[in-house]
């Protein structure tokens, strides 16, 4: 019943590779032999229902947790096995947007957007201020540098999170539910921004989302995650034609099917 699996980029060329990844939470196995490779320079989407293991895969790829089997390669490096120096160097080439933005509440917008440049890379204050302004402009924001995070609406908060993720000009942008919880207009604006950022900054992008209808208009490559592994992979058009009942249930948004609500 497996759907057509389009030829993904070879692991060595892909900036984001999940290679037979296994992981558990408590006594539950969340990921079982998960295999996925995002093509370089493309917008790829890993789509799955709530609890499918998307965020777990992201944390494993970033080296924030250790897999029970397999490996995740970020820009060719297995961060779970890398030295702290290698890990730090690789993370400087990656930008991440977390669900809800995960902005630091004790810093203002400029402090959040310039965090990597100022606190990690120790760039001069003027250079950081300029990069913060430019990054905010890239996401369509002006004169918000000194606002507190709790003064921001949801849509602006996501834009600030995007600006923070690209402020240090990464090669790879990872986004976990970048539009989750937003109204359709704000969600569309975030989607358009992601496309623009990819084009302007020549990024490789990996979206992790539960909403295929949101992801398909910009995804050039996508995989549906079900029961801890990829149920179908390919272009959005190929996935729409996939016979796998879990894929069809997710795409149709039906309560009945192999995916438990």
């Amino acid at each position, binding site marked *: 019943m497996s759907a057509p699996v389009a030829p993904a980029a070879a692991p060595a060329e892909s900036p984001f590779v999940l290679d037979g990844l296994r992981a558990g939470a408590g006594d539950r196995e969340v990921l079982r032999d998960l295999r996925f490779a995002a093509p370089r320079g493309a917008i790829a989407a890993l789509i799955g229902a709530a609890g499918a293991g998307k965020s777990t895969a992201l944390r494993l790829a970033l080296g924030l947790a250790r897999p029970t089997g397999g490996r995740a390669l970020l820009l060719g490096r297995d961060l779970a096995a890398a030295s702290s120096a290698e890990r730090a160097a690789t993370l400087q080439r990656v930008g991440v947007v*977390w669900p809800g933005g995960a902005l630091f509440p004790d810093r203002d917008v400029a402090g959040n957007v310039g965090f990597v440049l100022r606190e*990690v890379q120790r760039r001069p204050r003027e250079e950081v201020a300029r990069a913060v302004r430019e990054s905010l402009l890239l996401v369509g924001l002006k004169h918000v540098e000194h606002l507190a995070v709790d003064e921001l609406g949801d849509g602006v908060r996501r834009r600030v999170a995007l600006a923070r993720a690209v402020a240090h000009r990464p090669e790879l942008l990872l986004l976990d539910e970048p539009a989750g919880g937003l109204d359709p207009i704000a969600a569309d604006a975030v989607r358009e921004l992601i496309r623009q950022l990819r084009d302007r900054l020549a990024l490789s992008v990996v979206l992790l989302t539960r909403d295929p209808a949101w992801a398909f208009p910009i995804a050039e490559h996508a995989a549906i995650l079900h029961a801890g592994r990829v149920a179908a992979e390919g272009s959005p058009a190929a996935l729409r034609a996939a016979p796998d009942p879990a894929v069809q249930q997710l795409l149709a948004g039906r309560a009945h099917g192999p995916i438990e609500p």
Partner: protein
Amino acid sequence: MIAPALGQCRRVLFEAGPAVVAAAALASFAALAGDAAGASAGAPATAWPREAAPLVAALVACGPLAAARAGELARLRLDDQLDALRAMGGSAWRHLVAPRLLAGALALPVLVLLADAAGLGIAYLDWAPRAARWASAEGVGIGDVARGLVRGALFGAALAAVACAAGLAPPRPGRDGAARRAPRAVARAAARAGAGGAVAVLGLHVALGGGFSW
């Protein structure tokens, strides 16, 4: 690190409620002075700034310094901010723990000074004649106050350490996801830190040679 630490320090002082510290100090000092002038008549007034005022201030600060900061860190972990920090190459020690330890070590001496002032103030302003006679007879000096401030700084750092340990401890794994566990996990971390902080303060008080009947 200094700017975040000063920000944390301001929050601790604000949340501690200077009036609460002063009220606790007044009540404790009056009880101590009354007892000293009465039945036991052996307590030196220098015990107030040296030991009792730091203890009172630290126990009052278990809420704002230990429980509240632990809840804040637990919320930060559950909202993915800790992962965001680590994924950007930031350090939990440098950006979260160290500023809180420094804030604790700075904020507690301020509360101790407040407790000193509240306690010794009622004595020297002659609002409580028996307490005044007790305090002035002992000749409380600047050295006694300084020793109490150092003790307060140690208590503050200990409370902050307990808060960081409780707040940054990994949540229990579960099927329902972080969002649904969040309120309970935050409350649990705060409760653990509040109780753990009180035990740590009392333990440190004894370890530093402090007693409970002065």
